[in-house]
């Protein structure tokens, strides 16, 4: 038997629990996170129109650059202000 040392972060692969689904969008606050890729705002404009049509309140956010993770303050702000968030990468 050989014993090796684990080269990884040793994080237990935790299954993420999904947030509870919203039963309705009416009166809910939905965040739209612009990752700062070109023309992503046009896509999010369309989403905003559709979400508003469903009765949701929309708040827009933007990362400083698409190459880095969202700053922790921005993540906290979204978590505090929104019931749901749409974060997606579009190229």
């Amino acid at each position, binding site marked *: *038997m*050989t*014993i*090796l*040392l*684990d*080269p*990884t*972060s*040793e*994080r237990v692969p935790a299954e993420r629990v999904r947030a509870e689904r919203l039963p309705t969008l009416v009166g809910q606050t939905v965040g739209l996170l612009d990752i700062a890729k070109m023309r992503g705002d046009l896509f999010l404009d369309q989403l905003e129109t559709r979400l508003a049509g469903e009765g949701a309140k929309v708040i827009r956010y933007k990362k*400083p*650059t698409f*190459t*880095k*993770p969202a700053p922790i303050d921005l993540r906290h702000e979204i978590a505090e202000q929104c019931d749901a968030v749409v974060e997606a990468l579009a*190229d």
Partner: protein
Amino acid sequence: MRSCIESIEAEETLATESWVYAGRSIGYSGAMEKAASPGLPSGVLVFVKRDCPTCELVAPILQELAKKVPLTVYTQDDPEFPDALDAVDDTDLSVSWHNDIEAVPTLLRVESGKEVERAVGWHRGEWEALTGVDDLGPGLPELRPGCGSLSVDPVRGPELAIRFGQSRLQSRRVEIATLEDEMQACFDRGWSDGLPIVPPTEARVLAMLEGTKRAPDEIVATVPPDLVQCSVEKVAINAVMAGCRPSYLPVVLAAVEAACTDKFNIHGLLATTMSAGPVLIVNGPIRKSIGMNSGKNVLGQGNRANSTIGRALQLVIRNVGGGRPGDVDRATLGNPGKVGFCFAEDEEGSPWTPLCADFGFSEGTNTVTLFPGEGPRTLVDQISREPESLARSIAATLRTMYSPKMALAFDVVVIVSPEHARIFREAGWSKDDLRAKLHELTLIPGSEIVGGALGIAEGLPESVREHSIPKFRPDGLHIVHAGGGAGLFSAIIAGWVNGEIGSQTVSWEIKS
């Protein structure tokens, strides 16, 4: 020699038998039972080995001493040595190791199981004082230094430390079944970049850690994309897997630190759809001391340090940071250098100051400079003998980098080989002269770079049509001297999204 072979075999047998692991259900082992420290008898103790001229010299004295004091002899390599004494077999080195014997012969005086006095090597006065016996070895010289104890032999040290329970390592132990191929096991666990890795046994990792003075539990960096705090130990494990020698570890540690700065932004470089990865350029005396290549085939295969240091960094990003191709690494094409791309600058043959000096380090400082770059592209000019002509040649190639219709988005490293550098040297061109000329020659008329120009839709907005656009930022053009002595070639390494929104080149001091 016979006794040495026997002792090594005996040690290997013991090493196997004394490793007892408490296995857990998921294939990881927890606490190890360690070999206990043997107790010491009272009286005079002496540690010897046959393969030591001083021990041979004092052997007759030991026979005399045995008649006068309670004497216990521990022999490290041959239980039959010394003759006519019933020596204790310490070929497993357990007594020597637990009592910190650094040289043989070593004489101890022990009372109630505790050492109260020690003499190292042969020194008549000390031996007489310790034993209380006068006129020892009248025909011998007054003193004679001993030899190294086998228990501190650098080759055996890590294995002994593990066997005797002194491991300082915290990483989870992973059991590999006897019938499981170690290499395959590492692939199966997702630890490899696609090439075989050196299985990271505890002995190898301990040996790797000898390459640095830093403690194994010291945090080196927070590694993206999972933003995991990475210890010296984890870097050492991945350096073992990459094939590094311990002497490379300080370079790998510096590279991990530099890569994980916000400035270099390894997160973005990993996640990009573009082809780039970290390119490591080493400066300073450490290039020579660890045997790096800065000459022939400098960007190619064949040198262990060049081939493994960059790979170790990438394995840290993969295994500790969790950055894997297809997951956070979204490269459309990638490049072969993403396995690991590291080389040394030829400082000795260079007409210019080294790369690290461009980042504020004094010449002679050990540094690793990280550039976010793709694979090298060869630049051929075998005719130019005037610097102006050669600069134009280089500039014409630089202008096409990524696209002749793109500018200001990407930095570059120009690797000037010795034969090309000679032309600039003979003309008295400094590095700044060459850099300034290249900037000048890569100014692009707006009319040639706007979208639609040259019949290519790609390009800059129409608003720049009346302006000249520099291909590179003022500090975006790096020049390095490297390569073999024959060949009128140079090379360029194209960068990735530069500046604060992307990645900036970082030069980092290598510390021991």
